[in-house]
């Protein structure tokens, strides 16, 4: 069964069309990542799927409940951690969790146990009795996620869960996501970080200009952009000229004094390249291997005029 089913989703604010016909299919127990630049409509999508906003058109089913006819059923199945932490600043960490437990009617005992368990799991035991204003950004984010989990939702929406976190906190968050998925939870995650999607997602959709410009597994998306290359760095124009003549398939950059030679960066290709370099008496000062990653995909797909830009500059 699919956890989230979206077809023909549209949303406009006045004349400004944000979503112009989106189709999504998220399988149960998987991580689905929605990528997109600022203002692409990621939060709008999450807000529609979580019943906060009404779509202009399209059909949405979450956990088998039709969003239009059974929003309460949707709310019973989901947990949401919005883009900005929504914790009660005047309550302590423990009280914030207890508030969720009370509102979800977990019962006195079960509620208290759940709160203790989550404080433990998110490394908040020491801070449990302090009010949330004294928390660091990372702690707030952890508390925020813990609050989302109190009711053990089957489907969790995370809107940019690691924006603004330091590397350690990001990894902690990633581990939490992996643990949840291992326990059978479905995760719908938006992010601007390609490595995050690459690390976590089973499938990725790239949202740009109101439509999904790409959708697939991380590996499939990486295949969408031109392959990798080996960059040769030179110290003077004459040497670059000498090399460029012999490697006609390369792309030269006269200002940076570099020559990009196509190649996937595998050991075999590299050995051949090195042999050829010495054979042709080309003496670069340095050499670096560039494999395509999701950054290339992202930049290529979300650029104003696609394929013009890559991570390495204008090609």
């Amino acid at each position, binding site marked *: 069964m699919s956890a989230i089913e979206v077809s023909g989703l549209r949303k406009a*604010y006045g004349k400004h069309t944000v979503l112009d016909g989106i189709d999504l299919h998220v399988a149960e127990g998987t991580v689905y990542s929605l990528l997109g630049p600022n203002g692409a409509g990621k939060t709008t999508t999450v*807000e529609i799927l*979580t*019943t*906060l*906003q*009404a779509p202009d058109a399209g059909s949405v089913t979450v956990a088998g409940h039709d969003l239009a006819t059974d929003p*309460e059923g949707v*709310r*019973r199945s*989901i*947990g*949401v951690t*919005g883009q*900005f*932490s*929504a*914790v*009660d*600043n*005047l*309550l302590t960490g423990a*009280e914030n969790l207890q*508030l*969720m437990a*009370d*509102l*979800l*009617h977990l019962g006195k005992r079960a509620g208290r146990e759940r709160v203790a368990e989550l404080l433990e799991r998110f490394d908040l035991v020491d801070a449990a009795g302090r*009010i949330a204003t004294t928390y660091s950004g990372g702690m707030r984010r952890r508390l925020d996620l813990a*609050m989302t989990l109190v*009711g053990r939702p089957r489907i969790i929406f995370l809107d940019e869960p690691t924006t603004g976190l330091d590397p350690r906190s990001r990894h902690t968050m990633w581990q939490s996501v992996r643990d949840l998925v291992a326990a059978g939870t479905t995760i719908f995650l938006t992010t601007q970080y390609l490595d995050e999607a690459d690390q976590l997602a089973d499938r990725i959709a790239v949202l740009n200009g109101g439509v999904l410009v790409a959708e697939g597994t991380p590996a499939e998306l990486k295949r969408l952009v031109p392959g990798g290359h080996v960059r040769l760095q030179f110290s003077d124009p004459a040497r670059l000229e000498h090399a460029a003549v012999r490697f006609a398939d390369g792309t030269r950059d006269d200002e940076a004094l570099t020559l990009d030679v196509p190649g996937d960066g595998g050991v075999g290709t590299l050995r051949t390249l090195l042999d050829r370099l010495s054979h042709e008496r080309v003496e670069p000062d340095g050499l670096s291997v560039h494999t395509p990653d999701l950054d290339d995909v992202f930049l290529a797909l979300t650029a104003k005029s696609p394929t013009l830009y890559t991570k390495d500059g204008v090609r």
Partner: protein
Amino acid sequence: MTTTMIDSVTMFRRDLKHALRYPVMTISGIGTAVLFLLLFVGVFGNALGADFLPAGAGRYIDYVAPGVILMAAGTGTAATAIKINQDMLEGIIARLRTMSIARMSVLTGQVIGSLVRTLLSGILVVLVAVALGFRPSATPVEYLAAFGVFAMLTFALTWMAVAFGLATKTVAGANSLTLILQFLPLISSAFLPTDSMPAGVAWFAEHQPYTPIIETLRGLLMGSGIGDSAWWALAWCVVLAAGGFFWSRALYNRPRGA
């Protein structure tokens, strides 16, 4: 108990914790009313009492205290609007709206909290007034009715304040809107009889909601005669409460930013 009541009580307990941890807003609400009492009794009292009250109308403090007591219902609204606005800006309301809980319990919990706090403030203002020389002549039944009038007005103004909190985009905006509720009593029969005012102002004072409510309370506490004021008071409170409630509900269910 229905889930609506259980969830409202949960949210009320949260509000109570807030009030205990951050009492500044409650105190400033009480403070404003007490300040007006001191200002009009201590500073202007003698002059106003002698010049404007009809002869034999009694002491000025007995005239002015009921109006100032009702002002406490108005000054309490700032805290309500600010807190609702903060909950919205901090995303608490959005979070609760994605949860399967009694939908309006955030608002009803806040209303109960504000009601409790404002009623206590009102009692405090009464005590200060008595300390300053206020001597009501009410019977126990009249006291009870007076309490009812105060509670009714507080309930109505609180729902208006909730709507103000939801309708504004900043805390400062929410606070500013409630100034209307807080200072409307200045142009009413609270401090001076309306017939001592210029014609235009008098007309406004006679027809604005506070005047009949003040007249009702004054009648109950001082035996000054109520007439049809009680009906007007009731009508205004029902209109304000219903208006505030339905407006709040519409704003609460409205999508983000729309």
